[in-house]
Protein backbone atom coordinates (compact mmCIF):
# COMPACT_ATOMS: atom_id res chain seq x y z
CA UNK A 1 0.00 0.00 0.00
CA UNK A 2 2.83 2.26 0.82
CA UNK A 3 4.30 1.64 -2.37
CA UNK A 4 1.04 2.44 -4.08
CA UNK A 5 0.56 5.64 -2.10
CA UNK A 6 4.05 6.74 -2.99
CA UNK A 7 3.27 5.99 -6.58
CA UNK A 8 0.16 8.14 -6.50
CA UNK A 9 2.17 10.93 -4.92
CA UNK A 10 4.79 10.66 -7.60
CA UNK A 11 2.17 10.68 -10.31
CA UNK A 12 0.55 13.77 -8.88
CA UNK A 13 3.96 15.41 -8.67
CA UNK A 14 4.73 14.55 -12.27
CA UNK A 15 1.35 15.88 -13.44
CA UNK A 16 1.94 19.06 -11.48
CA UNK A 17 5.41 19.51 -12.99
CA UNK A 18 4.06 18.84 -16.47
CA UNK A 19 1.25 21.37 -16.10
CA UNK A 20 3.69 23.89 -14.70
CA UNK A 21 6.01 23.30 -17.64
CA UNK A 22 3.18 23.83 -20.15
CA UNK A 23 2.10 26.96 -18.33
CA UNK A 24 5.63 28.35 -18.38
CA UNK A 25 6.14 27.37 -21.97
CA UNK A 26 2.97 29.22 -22.94
CA UNK A 27 4.45 32.36 -21.42
CA UNK A 28 7.60 32.16 -23.60
CA UNK A 29 7.67 33.89 -27.04
CA UNK A 30 6.41 31.55 -29.69
CA UNK A 31 8.77 30.91 -32.67
CA UNK A 32 7.71 30.81 -36.33
CA UNK A 33 8.11 27.08 -36.63
CA UNK A 34 6.02 26.58 -33.50
CA UNK A 35 3.35 28.86 -34.91
CA UNK A 36 3.32 26.92 -38.17
CA UNK A 37 2.97 23.71 -36.27
CA UNK A 38 -0.07 25.14 -34.59
CA UNK A 39 -1.40 26.22 -37.94
CA UNK A 40 -0.93 22.71 -39.31
CA UNK A 41 -2.84 21.44 -36.39
CA UNK A 42 -5.56 24.02 -36.91
CA UNK A 43 -6.03 23.68 -40.65
CA UNK A 44 -4.83 20.14 -41.12
CA UNK A 45 -2.65 21.21 -44.12
CA UNK A 46 0.71 19.74 -45.02
CA UNK A 47 3.29 22.51 -45.08
CA UNK A 48 6.89 21.79 -45.86
CA UNK A 49 9.14 23.66 -43.50
CA UNK A 50 11.25 26.24 -45.37
CA UNK A 51 14.87 25.49 -46.10
CA UNK A 52 17.22 27.30 -43.82
CA UNK A 53 18.73 30.33 -45.55
CA UNK A 54 22.39 29.88 -46.28
CA UNK A 55 24.29 33.16 -46.16
CA UNK A 56 26.32 34.04 -49.27
CA UNK A 57 29.92 33.05 -48.74
CA UNK A 58 33.02 32.58 -50.83
CA UNK A 59 32.97 28.84 -51.12
CA UNK A 60 35.79 28.22 -53.55
CA UNK A 61 38.43 29.65 -55.82
CA UNK A 62 39.00 28.25 -59.30
CA UNK A 63 42.07 28.68 -61.47
CA UNK A 64 41.63 28.00 -65.15
CA UNK A 65 43.35 27.84 -68.49
CA UNK A 66 41.99 27.72 -72.03
CA UNK A 67 43.63 24.66 -73.61
CA UNK A 68 42.26 25.36 -77.09
CA UNK A 69 44.11 28.62 -77.63
CA UNK A 70 47.64 27.15 -77.74
CA UNK A 71 46.18 24.34 -79.87
CA UNK A 72 44.76 26.81 -82.39
CA UNK A 73 48.07 28.71 -82.33
CA UNK A 74 49.94 25.50 -83.06
CA UNK A 75 47.65 24.58 -85.94
CA UNK A 76 47.86 28.08 -87.38
CA UNK A 77 51.56 27.52 -88.11
CA UNK A 78 50.37 25.47 -91.08
CA UNK A 79 48.33 28.37 -92.45
CA UNK A 80 49.39 31.70 -93.85
CA UNK A 81 48.30 33.61 -90.75
CA UNK A 82 50.42 32.38 -87.83
CA UNK A 83 49.06 33.28 -84.43
CA UNK A 84 50.00 32.95 -80.79
CA UNK A 85 47.40 32.83 -78.03
CA UNK A 86 47.05 31.98 -74.38
CA UNK A 87 44.49 32.75 -71.71
CA UNK A 88 44.31 32.11 -67.98
CA UNK A 89 41.37 32.76 -65.72
CA UNK A 90 40.37 32.84 -62.08
CA UNK A 91 37.00 32.63 -60.46
CA UNK A 92 35.46 33.09 -57.05
CA UNK A 93 32.31 31.09 -56.41
CA UNK A 94 29.65 32.19 -53.96
CA UNK A 95 27.58 29.19 -52.87
CA UNK A 96 27.85 27.84 -56.44
CA UNK A 97 25.21 30.43 -57.25
CA UNK A 98 27.24 33.48 -58.21
CA UNK A 99 30.68 33.55 -59.87
CA UNK A 100 33.05 36.49 -59.99
CA UNK A 101 35.32 35.79 -62.93
CA UNK A 102 38.46 37.35 -64.36
CA UNK A 103 40.51 36.34 -67.39
CA UNK A 104 43.80 37.58 -68.78
CA UNK A 105 45.18 36.70 -72.16
CA UNK A 106 47.76 37.37 -74.83
CA UNK A 107 47.28 37.39 -78.55
CA UNK A 108 49.61 37.80 -81.49
CA UNK A 109 48.13 37.69 -84.94
CA UNK A 110 49.72 37.97 -88.35
CA UNK A 111 47.79 38.51 -91.55
CA UNK A 112 49.04 38.88 -95.05
CA UNK A 113 48.01 38.91 -98.64
CA UNK A 114 50.76 38.67 -101.18
CA UNK A 115 49.73 39.60 -104.70
CA UNK A 116 51.66 40.80 -107.71
CA UNK A 117 50.34 44.35 -107.66
CA UNK A 118 49.57 44.90 -104.01
CA UNK A 119 50.70 43.11 -100.91
CA UNK A 120 50.71 43.63 -97.17
CA UNK A 121 51.75 42.07 -93.89
CA UNK A 122 49.76 43.03 -90.81
CA UNK A 123 50.92 42.16 -87.28
CA UNK A 124 48.86 42.71 -84.14
CA UNK A 125 50.06 41.95 -80.63
CA UNK A 126 48.59 42.72 -77.24
CA UNK A 127 46.98 41.71 -73.98
CA UNK A 128 43.46 41.77 -72.71
CA UNK A 129 41.49 41.20 -69.55
CA UNK A 130 37.89 40.28 -68.95
CA UNK A 131 35.89 40.81 -65.74
CA UNK A 132 32.47 39.36 -65.15
CA UNK A 133 29.68 38.22 -62.93
CA UNK A 134 27.72 35.02 -63.57
CA UNK A 135 24.53 33.65 -62.10
CA UNK A 136 24.00 29.89 -61.93
CA UNK A 137 20.47 29.24 -63.11
CA UNK A 138 20.60 25.75 -61.58
CA UNK A 139 20.74 27.49 -58.22
CA UNK A 140 21.17 25.08 -55.36
CA UNK A 141 20.17 22.01 -57.33
CA UNK A 142 23.75 20.91 -57.82
CA UNK A 143 26.76 21.19 -55.61
CA UNK A 144 29.38 21.91 -58.26
CA UNK A 145 27.89 22.07 -61.77
CA UNK A 146 26.57 25.26 -63.22
CA UNK A 147 24.65 26.59 -66.18
CA UNK A 148 25.16 30.29 -66.06
CA UNK A 149 24.20 33.62 -67.53
CA UNK A 150 26.57 36.48 -67.12
CA UNK A 151 27.87 39.90 -68.02
CA UNK A 152 31.42 40.79 -68.98
CA UNK A 153 33.53 43.88 -69.42
CA UNK A 154 36.72 43.54 -71.45
CA UNK A 155 39.64 45.78 -72.27
CA UNK A 156 42.52 45.22 -74.66
CA UNK A 157 45.79 47.06 -75.17
CA UNK A 158 47.65 46.31 -78.37
CA UNK A 159 50.28 47.40 -80.88
CA UNK A 160 49.84 46.82 -84.57
CA UNK A 161 51.75 47.51 -87.73
CA UNK A 162 51.43 47.13 -91.45
CA UNK A 163 53.94 47.09 -94.26
CA UNK A 164 53.75 46.26 -97.90
CA UNK A 165 53.57 47.53 -101.43
CA UNK A 166 50.76 49.37 -103.08
CA UNK A 167 50.37 49.76 -106.81
CA UNK A 168 50.25 53.29 -108.16
CA UNK A 169 48.75 53.55 -111.55
CA UNK A 170 50.11 56.55 -113.51
CA UNK A 171 52.46 57.65 -110.74
CA UNK A 172 55.38 55.55 -111.81
CA UNK A 173 58.62 56.65 -110.24
CA UNK A 174 60.44 58.42 -113.09
CA UNK A 175 63.84 57.50 -111.67
CA UNK A 176 63.38 53.83 -110.90
CA UNK A 177 60.45 53.17 -113.26
CA UNK A 178 58.79 51.14 -110.50
CA UNK A 179 55.04 51.13 -110.38
CA UNK A 180 54.81 50.07 -106.75
CA UNK A 181 55.19 52.18 -103.69
CA UNK A 182 56.36 50.74 -100.36
CA UNK A 183 54.51 51.73 -97.25
CA UNK A 184 54.73 51.00 -93.56
CA UNK A 185 52.92 52.30 -90.52
CA UNK A 186 52.72 51.43 -86.86
CA UNK A 187 50.47 52.34 -83.93
CA UNK A 188 51.28 51.42 -80.34
CA UNK A 189 49.28 51.44 -77.14
CA UNK A 190 45.91 51.18 -78.83
CA UNK A 191 42.91 50.51 -76.60
CA UNK A 192 39.61 48.73 -77.10
CA UNK A 193 36.66 48.19 -74.75
CA UNK A 194 33.67 45.95 -75.09
CA UNK A 195 30.88 44.39 -73.04
CA UNK A 196 29.44 40.93 -73.45
CA UNK A 197 26.48 38.80 -72.62
CA UNK A 198 27.70 35.34 -71.63
CA UNK A 199 26.07 31.93 -71.41
CA UNK A 200 27.75 28.64 -70.64
CA UNK A 201 28.25 25.78 -68.30
CA UNK A 202 30.82 24.37 -65.91
CA UNK A 203 30.87 20.74 -64.93
CA UNK A 204 32.95 18.73 -62.51
CA UNK A 205 35.10 16.25 -64.40
CA UNK A 206 36.86 14.52 -61.55
CA UNK A 207 37.90 15.62 -58.07
CA UNK A 208 38.69 19.32 -58.17
CA UNK A 209 38.99 19.41 -61.96
CA UNK A 210 36.27 21.24 -63.86
CA UNK A 211 35.60 21.90 -67.53
CA UNK A 212 33.60 24.74 -68.98
CA UNK A 213 32.42 26.31 -72.19
CA UNK A 214 31.32 29.88 -72.51
CA UNK A 215 29.67 31.63 -75.44
CA UNK A 216 29.66 35.41 -75.58
CA UNK A 217 28.03 38.10 -77.63
CA UNK A 218 30.69 40.78 -77.63
CA UNK A 219 29.68 44.37 -78.34
CA UNK A 220 32.40 46.92 -78.99
CA UNK A 221 32.07 50.12 -77.00
CA UNK A 222 35.11 51.87 -78.42
CA UNK A 223 38.50 51.28 -79.98
CA UNK A 224 41.39 53.42 -81.15
CA UNK A 225 41.39 53.64 -84.90
CA UNK A 226 44.76 54.38 -86.43
CA UNK A 227 44.87 57.28 -88.90
CA UNK A 228 46.91 55.37 -91.49
CA UNK A 229 45.34 51.91 -91.49
CA UNK A 230 42.42 50.03 -90.07
CA UNK A 231 42.36 47.76 -87.04
CA UNK A 232 42.03 44.17 -88.20
CA UNK A 233 42.37 42.30 -84.91
CA UNK A 234 41.69 43.14 -81.28
CA UNK A 235 43.21 40.80 -78.69
CA UNK A 236 40.42 38.91 -76.94
CA UNK A 237 37.82 40.16 -79.41
CA UNK A 238 39.36 38.63 -82.52
CA UNK A 239 39.00 39.52 -86.15
CA UNK A 240 37.35 42.86 -86.78
CA UNK A 241 35.79 43.31 -90.19
CA UNK A 242 35.07 46.69 -91.71
CA UNK A 243 32.21 48.42 -89.83
CA UNK A 244 31.77 45.47 -87.47
CA UNK A 245 30.73 46.25 -83.90
CA UNK A 246 29.64 42.91 -82.46
CA UNK A 247 30.44 39.24 -82.84
CA UNK A 248 30.13 35.84 -81.16
CA UNK A 249 33.10 34.40 -79.31
CA UNK A 250 33.69 31.18 -77.40
CA UNK A 251 36.03 30.16 -74.63
CA UNK A 252 36.84 26.71 -73.34
CA UNK A 253 38.36 26.32 -69.91
CA UNK A 254 39.80 23.73 -67.59
CA UNK A 255 39.55 24.77 -63.93
CA UNK A 256 41.01 23.51 -60.72
CA UNK A 257 38.89 24.18 -57.65
CA UNK A 258 40.34 25.17 -54.30
CA UNK A 259 37.71 25.10 -51.52
CA UNK A 260 37.69 28.14 -49.27
CA UNK A 261 34.74 27.58 -46.93
CA UNK A 262 34.02 24.07 -45.81
CA UNK A 263 30.61 23.48 -44.32
CA UNK A 264 28.05 20.76 -44.68
CA UNK A 265 25.56 23.21 -46.15
CA UNK A 266 27.93 24.11 -48.97
CA UNK A 267 29.37 20.70 -49.74
Amino acid at each position, binding site marked *: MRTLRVTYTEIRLQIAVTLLSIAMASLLPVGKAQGQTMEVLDTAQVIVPPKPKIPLRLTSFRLGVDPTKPLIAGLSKFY*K*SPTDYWEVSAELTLNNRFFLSAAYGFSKTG*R*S*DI*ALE*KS*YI*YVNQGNYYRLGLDYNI*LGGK*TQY*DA*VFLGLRYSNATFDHS*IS*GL*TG*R*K*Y*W*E*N*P*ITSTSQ*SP*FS*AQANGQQANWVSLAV*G*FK*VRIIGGLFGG*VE*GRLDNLLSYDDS*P*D*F*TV*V*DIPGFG*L*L*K*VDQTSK*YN*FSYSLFYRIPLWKHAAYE
Partner: protein
Amino acid sequence: MRKIVLTFLTVVTVCLWSSCTECDPISNPVTSANVTFYRKNSAGTGYEKYKKLVFASVNGIYERFQGDTLLATIVALDDTLLNSRVYLPLRYDADSSYFRFLLADLNTANAETLQIYHAKKLVINAPDCGFYEQYSEIEVKGSFFDSVNVLNPLLVTDTTVVNIEVFVNDSIPGNIE
Protein backbone atom coordinates in the same frame (compact mmCIF):
# COMPACT_ATOMS: atom_id res chain seq x y z
CA MET B 1 22.98 18.08 -66.75
CA ARG B 2 24.31 15.80 -69.47
CA LYS B 3 21.50 16.89 -71.79
CA ILE B 4 22.34 20.53 -71.17
CA VAL B 5 26.03 19.94 -71.83
CA LEU B 6 25.38 18.02 -75.04
CA THR B 7 22.92 20.64 -76.29
CA PHE B 8 25.30 23.45 -75.55
CA LEU B 9 28.24 21.68 -77.19
CA THR B 10 26.12 21.08 -80.29
CA VAL B 11 25.16 24.75 -80.46
CA VAL B 12 28.76 25.84 -79.98
CA THR B 13 29.98 23.46 -82.68
CA VAL B 14 27.36 24.67 -85.14
CA CYS B 15 28.16 28.29 -84.36
CA LEU B 16 31.88 27.73 -84.77
CA TRP B 17 31.34 25.87 -88.02
CA SER B 18 29.18 28.63 -89.41
CA SER B 19 31.49 31.37 -88.25
CA CYS B 20 34.38 30.34 -90.51
CA THR B 21 35.62 33.61 -91.88
CA GLU B 22 35.75 34.03 -95.61
CA CYS B 23 36.50 36.93 -97.86
CA ASP B 24 33.51 39.15 -98.36
CA PRO B 25 33.15 40.54 -101.86
CA ILE B 26 33.35 44.29 -101.55
CA SER B 27 33.56 47.14 -104.01
CA ASN B 28 36.66 49.19 -103.48
CA PRO B 29 36.41 52.96 -103.62
CA VAL B 30 38.04 54.70 -106.53
CA THR B 31 41.53 56.17 -106.19
CA SER B 32 41.01 59.01 -108.65
CA ALA B 33 39.28 62.28 -107.86
CA ASN B 34 36.44 63.05 -110.21
CA VAL B 35 36.84 66.64 -111.43
CA THR B 36 34.14 68.42 -113.41
CA PHE B 37 34.76 71.68 -115.25
CA TYR B 38 32.41 74.64 -115.64
CA ARG B 39 32.82 77.69 -117.87
CA LYS B 40 31.36 81.15 -117.52
CA ASN B 41 28.31 81.59 -119.71
CA SER B 42 28.24 84.17 -122.45
CA ALA B 43 26.37 86.64 -120.30
CA GLY B 44 28.98 86.29 -117.60
CA THR B 45 26.31 85.77 -114.97
CA GLY B 46 26.92 82.13 -114.18
CA TYR B 47 28.64 78.92 -115.14
CA GLU B 48 27.69 76.10 -117.45
CA LYS B 49 29.11 72.62 -117.50
CA TYR B 50 31.63 71.54 -120.10
CA LYS B 51 30.52 68.59 -122.16
CA LYS B 52 33.97 67.88 -123.42
CA LEU B 53 37.18 69.63 -122.62
CA VAL B 54 39.98 70.07 -125.07
CA PHE B 55 43.15 69.92 -123.06
CA ALA B 56 46.33 69.08 -124.90
CA SER B 57 47.35 66.95 -121.95
CA VAL B 58 46.87 66.41 -118.28
CA ASN B 59 50.04 65.51 -116.42
CA GLY B 60 51.10 64.81 -112.94
CA ILE B 61 54.00 66.58 -111.37
CA TYR B 62 55.94 63.99 -109.45
CA GLU B 63 57.51 65.82 -106.58
CA ARG B 64 60.04 64.22 -104.37
CA PHE B 65 62.82 65.31 -102.09
CA GLN B 66 66.42 64.34 -102.61
CA GLY B 67 68.02 65.49 -99.42
CA ASP B 68 66.68 69.00 -99.00
CA THR B 69 66.13 69.54 -102.70
CA LEU B 70 62.65 69.33 -104.12
CA LEU B 71 62.67 67.62 -107.47
CA ALA B 72 59.75 67.58 -109.86
CA THR B 73 59.17 65.43 -112.89
CA ILE B 74 56.29 65.60 -115.31
CA VAL B 75 54.60 62.23 -115.63
CA ALA B 76 52.00 61.22 -118.15
CA LEU B 77 48.49 60.51 -116.92
CA ASP B 78 46.81 58.70 -119.77
CA ASP B 79 43.15 57.77 -119.82
CA THR B 80 42.25 60.40 -117.26
CA LEU B 81 39.96 62.31 -119.62
CA LEU B 82 36.45 61.08 -120.03
CA ASN B 83 33.82 63.31 -121.56
CA SER B 84 33.23 66.24 -119.28
CA ARG B 85 35.05 64.70 -116.37
CA VAL B 86 38.70 64.34 -115.61
CA TYR B 87 39.77 61.56 -113.28
CA LEU B 88 42.88 62.56 -111.40
CA PRO B 89 44.70 59.63 -109.79
CA LEU B 90 45.87 60.50 -106.29
CA ARG B 91 49.26 59.54 -104.94
CA TYR B 92 49.40 57.20 -102.02
CA ASP B 93 53.03 57.94 -101.21
CA ALA B 94 52.44 61.65 -100.65
CA ASP B 95 49.97 63.91 -98.87
CA SER B 96 49.16 65.82 -102.03
CA SER B 97 48.96 65.23 -105.77
CA TYR B 98 50.00 67.94 -108.18
CA PHE B 99 48.50 68.19 -111.67
CA ARG B 100 49.20 70.27 -114.76
CA PHE B 101 46.59 70.96 -117.39
CA LEU B 102 48.16 71.96 -120.71
CA LEU B 103 45.90 73.90 -123.00
CA ALA B 104 45.40 73.06 -126.63
CA ASP B 105 47.95 75.51 -127.92
CA LEU B 106 50.70 73.46 -126.23
CA ASN B 107 52.17 76.57 -124.76
CA THR B 108 53.35 75.55 -121.34
CA ALA B 109 53.00 79.14 -120.23
CA ASN B 110 49.25 78.65 -120.48
CA ALA B 111 49.26 75.62 -118.25
CA GLU B 112 46.91 75.57 -115.29
CA THR B 113 47.74 73.65 -112.15
CA LEU B 114 45.75 71.99 -109.43
CA GLN B 115 47.17 70.67 -106.18
CA ILE B 116 44.95 68.26 -104.31
CA TYR B 117 45.69 67.56 -100.66
CA HIS B 118 44.19 64.42 -99.19
CA ALA B 119 44.16 62.11 -96.19
CA LYS B 120 44.67 58.43 -96.96
CA LYS B 121 44.13 55.22 -95.14
CA LEU B 122 44.71 51.55 -95.89
CA VAL B 123 41.59 49.51 -95.26
CA ILE B 124 42.26 45.80 -94.94
CA ASN B 125 39.54 43.50 -96.10
CA ALA B 126 39.82 40.90 -93.36
CA PRO B 127 40.76 38.15 -93.18
CA ASP B 128 43.70 38.12 -95.56
CA CYS B 129 41.63 39.42 -98.47
CA GLY B 130 43.70 42.29 -99.72
CA PHE B 131 43.32 45.96 -99.02
CA TYR B 132 42.31 49.17 -100.64
CA GLU B 133 43.25 52.80 -100.31
CA GLN B 134 40.64 55.14 -98.93
CA TYR B 135 41.16 58.80 -99.79
CA SER B 136 39.30 61.46 -97.85
CA GLU B 137 39.43 65.06 -96.60
CA ILE B 138 40.20 66.37 -100.06
CA GLU B 139 41.29 69.98 -100.21
CA VAL B 140 42.47 71.99 -103.19
CA LYS B 141 45.17 74.56 -102.74
CA GLY B 142 47.21 76.66 -105.12
CA SER B 143 44.80 76.51 -108.02
CA PHE B 144 45.30 78.89 -110.91
CA PHE B 145 41.78 78.32 -112.15
CA ASP B 146 39.10 80.93 -111.49
CA SER B 147 37.77 79.09 -108.51
CA VAL B 148 37.49 75.57 -107.16
CA ASN B 149 34.84 73.92 -105.04
CA VAL B 150 35.23 70.61 -103.23
CA LEU B 151 31.86 68.96 -103.55
CA ASN B 152 32.61 65.56 -101.97
CA PRO B 153 35.82 65.24 -99.94
CA LEU B 154 35.54 61.43 -99.77
CA LEU B 155 36.30 59.12 -102.69
CA VAL B 156 33.64 56.43 -102.97
CA THR B 157 32.93 53.43 -105.17
CA ASP B 158 30.52 55.31 -107.41
CA THR B 159 32.56 56.75 -110.28
CA THR B 160 29.87 59.28 -111.13
CA VAL B 161 30.17 61.12 -107.82
CA VAL B 162 31.86 64.46 -108.49
CA ASN B 163 34.53 65.38 -105.99
CA ILE B 164 35.80 68.69 -107.28
CA GLU B 165 34.19 71.40 -109.38
CA VAL B 166 36.54 73.68 -111.27
CA PHE B 167 35.33 77.00 -112.64
CA VAL B 168 37.33 78.45 -115.53
CA ASN B 169 37.13 81.42 -117.80
CA ASP B 170 36.10 80.96 -121.40
CA SER B 171 39.65 80.66 -122.71
CA ILE B 172 39.69 76.86 -122.56
CA PRO B 173 38.08 75.49 -125.71
CA GLY B 174 35.44 72.79 -125.39
CA ASN B 175 31.83 71.89 -125.91
CA ILE B 176 29.20 73.00 -123.46
CA GLU B 177 26.38 70.68 -122.45
